[in-house]
């Protein structure tokens, strides 16, 4: 007996066993496309990890997070015409504790950087970041500003960059789809972050500025340091 016939026989047997269990006149619900695709057996065997990745990719809760101009296009991509909900990513959550994707839509400035880091830290693992617009890539048109952080990767790691100023909603939808692909395939983001963890004030190298602030800032305070010269 060749392998093929053996397989065929087993399938036939499975089908008949099932039919035997259900009795005659099988419920139409079981004759689904899925069943046709997978053959007779109504079971799909997979790895649990793969299954979880598939689930994660198809049901993403995005953090409701508006910063600047790009957030207007982000609203539009939730809206009627572009409707990102078609792809299972259209449930914005207002609390970071309920979200697993954060879209960073706008310029990050020195005052907001630490706050955004805190919001990111509050999200449960696994979490994914889409950076939207040129400002989050490099500082964009405001790169030369005294107060502007040159890209969101100075603070948090990023999975997908969507360039544009601002990107069209279609571009953002494409970015989300690419992220879903990545998640489904179980790929993690290349970590390209520079400082990522904030320093404690006490660990800073002492210079004139540190000395000046030493009285005002607690040694245990976490601080961010912007060294524009290193850009």
């Amino acid at each position, binding site marked *: 007996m060749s392998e093929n016939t053996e397989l065929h026989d087993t399938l036939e047997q499975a089908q008949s066993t099932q039919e035997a269990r259900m009795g005659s006149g099988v419920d139409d619900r079981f004759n689904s496309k899925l069943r046709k695709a997978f053959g007779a057996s109504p079971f799909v065997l997979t790895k649990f990890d793969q299954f979880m990745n598939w689930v994660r990719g198809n049901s993403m809760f995005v953090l*409701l*997070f*508006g*910063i*600047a*101009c790009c*957030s*207007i*296009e982000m*609203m*539009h991509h939730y*809206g*009627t*015409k572009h409707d990102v909900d078609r792809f299972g990513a259209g449930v914005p959550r*207002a609390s*970071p504790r309920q979200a697993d994707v954060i879209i960073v839509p*706008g*310029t990050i*400035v*020195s*005052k*907001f*950087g*630490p*706050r*955004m*880091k*805190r*919001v990111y830290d509050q999200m449960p693992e696994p979490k994914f970041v889409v950076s939207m617009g040129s*400002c989050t890539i490099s500082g964009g*048109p*405001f790169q*030369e*500003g*005294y*107060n*502007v952080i040159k890209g969101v990767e100075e603070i948090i790691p990023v999975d997908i960059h969507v360039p544009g*100023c*601002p990107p*069209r909603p279609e571009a953002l939808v494409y970015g989300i789809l690419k992220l879903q692909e990545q998640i489904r395939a179980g790929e993690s983001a290349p970590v390209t972050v520079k400082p990522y963890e*904030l320093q404690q*004030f006490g660990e*800073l190298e002492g210079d004139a*500025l*540190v000395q*000046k*602030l030493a009285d*005002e*800032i*607690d040694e*245990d*305070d*976490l*601080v*961010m*340091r*912007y*060294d*524009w*010269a290193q850009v």
Partner: protein
Amino acid sequence: MSLEQPHQLDVGETPEGELDYDALADLLGESVIDREEHINCEAFVIRPDDVARALSTLREEAGFDHLSCVTAQEYRDRYESIYHLKKYDDPTQELSLVVPTTRENPASQSGASVFDTANWHEREAYDLVGIEYDDHPDLRRILLPETWQGYPLSLDYNQDKPQIVPLREHVNPMETRNKGADDSDTMFLNIGPHHPATHGVLHLRTVLDGEQVVDVDPDIGYLHRCEEQMCQQSTYRHQIMPYPDRWDYISAGILNEWAYARAAEDLADLDVPEYAQVIRTMSAEMCRIAAHLLAVGTFALDIYGDFTAIFMYAITDRERIENLLEDLTGQRLMFNYLRLGGVAWDLPEPRDRYFEKVREFTDQFPDRLEEYHNLLTNNELFQMRVIDTGILPPEEAKRYGCTGPVLRGSGVDYDLRRDDPYGYYDELEWDVITDDGCDNFARARVRLEEMRQSIRIIEQCVDLLEEWPEDDRQIQSNVPRTLKPDSDTEIYRAVEGAKGELGIYIRSDGTDKPARFKIRSPAFCNLQSLEVMAEGEYVPDMVAALGSLDIVLGEVDR
């Protein structure tokens, strides 16, 4: 108009509605050290210890009840604060007070005791330029973090020096819980900077007594991306124009571009062809509709969480109008369409098809507007939430320098499109919408009705453009490739943006880049009046008041 009461003339006002600067100088007497000529008006140089008296004399006796802006700047030999004064009755009557201080001791008297709006303007001047104001109620940094070292818009600021911003994660947020007197039971609550009701990255420090707001202190600067610095290091001709789109980014781009175009065109004495003015007027009103739609949509979202109906309807209509704008300018949001002396290019070909599309929109929009009225202003739930909440009396609104729909919702008839005409507005038929309600409802209604007027303006513009003779379609006047306005000319010009009076101050130093570029942001001034509306009210009413102010953080922080 003959039926109106004869207008009582203020001191220094001629019967023709002009200003008699000599009479005003006499009124101020010895506080005036010198007089300067700016392009928009005359300026009096005032002694730095006499600012409050001069401001209050001008307000009480000469009718200058609108402190439009305070510009601070540093020269090689001195610091200067310029108080740009106007009248709400007639904004073409302008006067600037220039307050010089020495470099060694940059301190002048604060104007905050006369105009409440001066409070934030002077804090900003302190923050960015480093001028100190005596008798200021609360002089501390406003846009930059508290630990910032140096004043970024001063002349010798070194941007490459590292800065430290603390993340006070370990502070116990409940520590400051009891802020009031010992026997009171108040609570300190942070709202924002990441909060869905704050329309972006606004941070409200509130003190609550139960559910009532005792004190609210907006903490801004979470989107301060150095717009003024960007404009000061860009050339007039091409490089500045993309930035205005990003101040008020709610599709109000062309309105903002117009503010810069108007100031720079008057500064460099450029003409704009009439045809281009009509295109500007039409596209600017499209932007106003888009901006007001989002304001109404998010307001409904704030009031009763209406994500599915009104917000989505507003987004749908915005998509329609953004299609029109994209056909015209090539971009959905950041248009970069205006040029000094005109617009970038003519209407899209085929023109008939474009006019047809615009007509289609203007024809169906009034019906949509009725739908918005049915869903919002006729809705009992909405009325219960917004009528008689967030009261802003007209006198308070004026002292806080409010403009735009916020001011018109307090019953003050003030619209720069009519009162200080520019573009093609004075040739067209339309009305200024006001509402005496002074509450959240009035402000929302004013926005809805303004969209109807914008539709009227667009319709008339389309009629004009359709008939425009083909050989007269000049879209730009002749503008020198490198624009270098005369040295030491100063100008302050404003247009009616989506949120109110958007003013630009430019001082030129003879190069192709401005020496000082100051943005008078309407949302910045309007936001200041939140304390009037919110204090003593419930927390949800504060959220409603914030929504009805329709701030956009890009413009507040610049």
